[in-house]
């Protein structure tokens, strides 16, 4: 209950700040819509030449693009604003202020900035997913339920990856460049992983897990998810979250024993 109240207060605070810088908010929303439109146009042009990519039809890839767009927005309104501050806290030595609070520091860095005013962009992503699902004839309750589960699992993976990369700031201080890997899902993940050569498929499944982040939810939404991939996605998400949380606690212990 306390944590929900805190999240509500954090949202309120962030929205107040966003309202102070209105032009930035609207500018970003416009840029996002433009980028989604460009991707769609590119996709349409490609499918003028081929009938499928890696075994995926245009409408199935449409769902994939919708998922990438949705995840992009979640990263933009939540993960990036909150987690990118970790390096700042570490560089400026402001971490002490968080650590003396009687609330887990991982909670504070995870939810502190939620720019929900940009939520409109999220609707664009969900709209694209809906359109793709309609055109592939997969508007069924079970598909929506599976989509929700695997979209959350995908977000958990992105969150864990980003948290783990940002946590490296405790050891290396400047890691913004490394942490920008977080946007990989929107480049590599915009295509069916099956379309890549085998070595890249392995890379994008296990090392930079865009397959689990974007492909698996898209397959779930269109009723094509195999149980192996489904279980794999859930297992990967669980492991990633545990790993990132462990790394975080290690970093805090290390910070407490070494910093001045």
């Amino acid at each position: 209950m306390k944590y929900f109240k805190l999240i509500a207060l954090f949202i309120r605070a962030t929205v107040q700040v966003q309202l102070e810088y209105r032009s930035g908010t609207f500018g970003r929303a416009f840029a996002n819509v433009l980028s989604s439109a460009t991707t769609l146009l590119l996709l349409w042009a490609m499918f003028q030449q081929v009938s499928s990519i890696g075994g995926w039809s245009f409408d199935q890839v449409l769902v994939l693009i919708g998922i990438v767009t949705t995840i992009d927005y979640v990263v933009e309104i939540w993960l990036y604003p909150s987690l990118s501050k970790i390096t700042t806290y570490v560089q400026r030595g402001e971490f002490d202020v968080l650590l003396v609070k009687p609330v887990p520091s991982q909670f504070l860095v995870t939810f502190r900035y939620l720019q929900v005013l940009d939520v409109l962009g999220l609707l664009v992503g969900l709209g694209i997913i809906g359109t793709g699902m309609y055109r592939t004839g997969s508007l069924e309750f079970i598909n929506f339920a599976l989509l929700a589960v695997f979209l959350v699992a995908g977000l958990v993976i992105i969150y864990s990856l980003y948290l783990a990369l940002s946590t490296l700031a405790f050891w290396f201080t400047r890691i913004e460049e490394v942490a920008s890997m977080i946007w990989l899902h929107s480049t590599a993940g915009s295509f069916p992983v099956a379309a890549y050569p085998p070595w890249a498929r392995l890379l994008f499944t296990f090392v930079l897990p865009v397959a689990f982040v974007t492909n698996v939810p898209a397959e779930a939404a269109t009723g094509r998810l195999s149980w192996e991939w489904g279980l794999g996605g859930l297992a990967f998400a669980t492991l990633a979250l545990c790993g990132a949380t462990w790394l975080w606690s290690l970093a805090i212990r290390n910070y407490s024993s070494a910093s001045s």
Partner: protein
Amino acid sequence: MSAIIQLDHLCKDYEVHQKEPGLMGSLRSFVRRKYQLVPAVKDVSFEIEQGEIVGFLGPNGAGKTTTLKVLSGLLYPTSGHARVLGFTPHERKADFLKSITMVMGQKQQLAWDMTPSDSFLVNQAIYDVSDADFRRRLGELTEMLELQPVLNKPVRKLSLGERMKCELAGALLHGPKILFLDEPTIGLDVNMQQAVRRFVADYNVRTGAAVMLTSHYMADVEALAERVLVIDGGQLVFDGNLSALVAERAPNKVLKLQLAHPVSPERLSVFAPVRMMEGLTAELLAPRGKVAEIASRILNDVPVADIAIEDMPIEEVVGRLFQRKPPIEAVREAAK
């Protein structure tokens, strides 16, 4: 009364990354880092009781902040033990963190773009403060710190002094039993320094909270703390009463003279060593036991318009202390 802060033979070492000079040195240390252990705090022990205000003095890098960070749970001790309110600080239990507060003059907790009121609401939720307690404490703090006009302005639009007052309010809304104040008046103008000092003293009287305060401004410590801990080079070099520190470390009093006519320094130095001479103003150092006698001789022999007998400024006393480091026991004995 029993001690609520106990520090027992605390040692804290830092691992410091050693870099050789020059580009090659940078490359070498990039490939293979060398670390050196630097002791920041060496074998420090003390106890603090409920309701005490203790000044923590020492030059930069003496180990003051490190000690405060160990006591507030931010750092693990390398060896030795800390107990605060019955808790081991570095375990950072929620009940412990709710009972203390840490104000760092150089680090701010209030969100830059939010109003203090909004930041206070977040603190209320973080510290599980009931609505009734929150309203009562905020009312008190608003009155004591005169916060009403600034509560609803974004923090970034506040002056440094206004911001520090809001920081203090935010840090005290959960009614902590111990206040760790690390340079709370740094950068503030004299009026604001006084306001903060008055507030800390009032708060201590009203709530009985213990206060541990570090400051570069001796006036803070003079105004607030009866007891001082002096730390230098990571070692505790004095623990005792502030006036005892002055009596022990400053064997001389300062005789301030306002002369009626110009007098040569040589003529004054017959009575006592001249510490300063500027135009018609002079300061002499007179041994405590003989100060009255010397003063009367001066009044008889020299054209004096005004005379005052004062203690050595505490800055000087403490400055002297840092130059010599007697064993703590000897100083404790002397202070009694």
